[in-house]
């Protein structure tokens, strides 16, 4: 059952996007996420839709995989839409029933937040679907390198991420095995009240924890035996090289963002209202 969980959801394929440098992809993805907050008009969203469709098509990822990640936040999406529809009180009143009032402003914000959240997820899932977790780790390490100057333990952070990635499959297997073993001893995880259910997890958590310590000790021994002593003078096998793809992609992306910003500039009035609303409403900022 737990084995069905695929981590990182990398979708192996050979595409332009797959072959891009992970650092460039990561940076552009961040830029996209910021950029999407500057899009306020529906024309802007139409523009981004075209952009995303082109992006997905060129990445050779089946639409199914993208929709799957959107499905992951479906509850959040519905909540956002409902909260926006019922709690925004700007524009003209459309209908009223008991204490519920729906304004056209509410529908407008609900639609926009829906698109924004969906596109955020779509954009970032293009990154995670086309980049292996290992590449992402390397990209983060490489991009954070300048922070070494201010004594941020960049190497250690990257190592922790890399170790976590390599331990996760084993941990999932082990959890699965312990659950089965306790089930065989009559453990029941599906019935009873909350307290009972939480208590039912003790026989899983303790063996996992004990196993975790055992693993950690063995791993530490293995690392020490292979001459690990922190980041001093460490070299790396993997060299990340920028190729023409990265420059082309960056160029296209920048062109895209410049357009977005220009459109934003033309509609700055709306945007101020929008940002202001974020603070007033006090609900949606949680998500960002």
């Amino acid at each position, binding site marked *: 059952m737990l084995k069905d969980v695929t981590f990182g959801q990398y979708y192996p394929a050979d595409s332009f996007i797959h072959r891009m440098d992970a650092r460039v992809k990561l940076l552009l993805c961040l830029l996209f996420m910021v950029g999407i907050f500057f899009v306020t008009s529906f024309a802007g969203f139409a523009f981004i839709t075209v952009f995303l469709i082109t992006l997905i098509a060129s990445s050779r990822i089946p639409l199914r995989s993208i929709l799957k990640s959107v499905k992951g936040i479906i509850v959040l999406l519905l909540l956002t839409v409902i909260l926006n529809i019922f709690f925004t009180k700007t524009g003209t009143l459309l209908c009223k029933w008991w204490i519920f009032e729906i304004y056209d402003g509410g529908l407008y914000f609900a639609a926009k937040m829906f698109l924004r959240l969906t596109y955020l997820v779509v954009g970032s899932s293009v990154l995670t679907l086309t980049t*292996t977790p290992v590449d992402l780790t390397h990209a983060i390490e490489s991009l954070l390198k300048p922070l070494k100057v201010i004594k941020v333990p960049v190497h250690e952070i990257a190592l922790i991420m890399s*170790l976590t990635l*390599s331990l996760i499959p084993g941990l999932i297997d082990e959890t699965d095995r312990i659950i089965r073993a306790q089930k065989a001893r009559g453990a029941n995880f599906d019935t009873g009240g909350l307290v009972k259910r939480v208590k039912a997890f003790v026989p899983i958590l303790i063996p996992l924890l004990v196993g975790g310590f055992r693993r950690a000790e063995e791993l530490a021994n*293995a690392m020490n*035996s*292979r001459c690990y002593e922190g980041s001093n003078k*460490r070299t790396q096998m993997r060299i990340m090289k920028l190729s023409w793809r990265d420059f082309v992609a960056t160029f296209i992306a920048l062109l895209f963002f410049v357009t977005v910003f220009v459109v934003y500039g033309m509609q700055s009035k709306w945007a101020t209202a929008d940002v202001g609303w974020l603070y007033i409403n006090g609900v949606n900022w949680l998500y960002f």
Partner: protein
Amino acid sequence: MDIITLENVSYYYKTYDDEGAAAQASGVEGINLTIREGAFVALVGHNGSGKSTLAKLLNGLLVPNSGTVTVCGLDTADKKNIFEIRKNVGMVFQNPDNQMVASIVEEDVAFGPENLGVPQPEIVERVYSALEQVGMTEYAKRSPHKLSGGQKQRIAIAGALAIRPKVIVFDESTAMLDPQGRREVLSVARELNKQGMTVILITHFMEEVYGCDEVVVMSGGHIVKIGKPSEIFADERLLEAVGLDAPRSVALAAKLKSVGFDVTENCIDARTLGVEVCRNLTK
């Protein structure tokens, strides 16, 4: 030439009783042992006999409470030497899943040379020659998670080899594997030894000991006997006392010999023994 020397080495683990008072439980005590360069030495004993403690003393993972461990002329108790010692003594552990540091085979193998600060082109060369030595080149870009236990251990061996050590210690590296995985690891160990590597094999499977230059038998934290495999196999009383078994065919050969059969001692191959027994029967 001796590559590893242990002189009167003792190591105690700290333990606590129910009241929390510290006590000392013995790991190993009064160990004297020298290992020749290029030798294939097996270290056998039951679980808790101290053989794994001894293994961890060989590359400074543990430092003796008394006595000295010298590796390539360097004392493991001197912190300055640790790096140099670990460069010379590679280690492969028991659980194949708990030694992987990366989620791609080649990056895992590269971990050692990266730590040593080896220049990038040389890391690639070392990684691929190590993978070749263990016959895992085709898996370089794969995730180790999906491999069999034996294959994972071969990756771990490659990880140790990439450091280019003089000695490689197998700390019960076969204990969790199925018979095929065990064969894989053993054949790599034998091949490495043929190429001049000093191999120390820690195990409780007596069959793996066959063909070693020397067997060190441990029990209760002490070395109880050092000898050739044939001498150890022949010492039935010793094996019984330390809770180990001679391979069944060896045991049968010994029994038959004791009642006057003319058979080769230490016959690991049961078929050969069968042929010999038939010859005896038709005589």
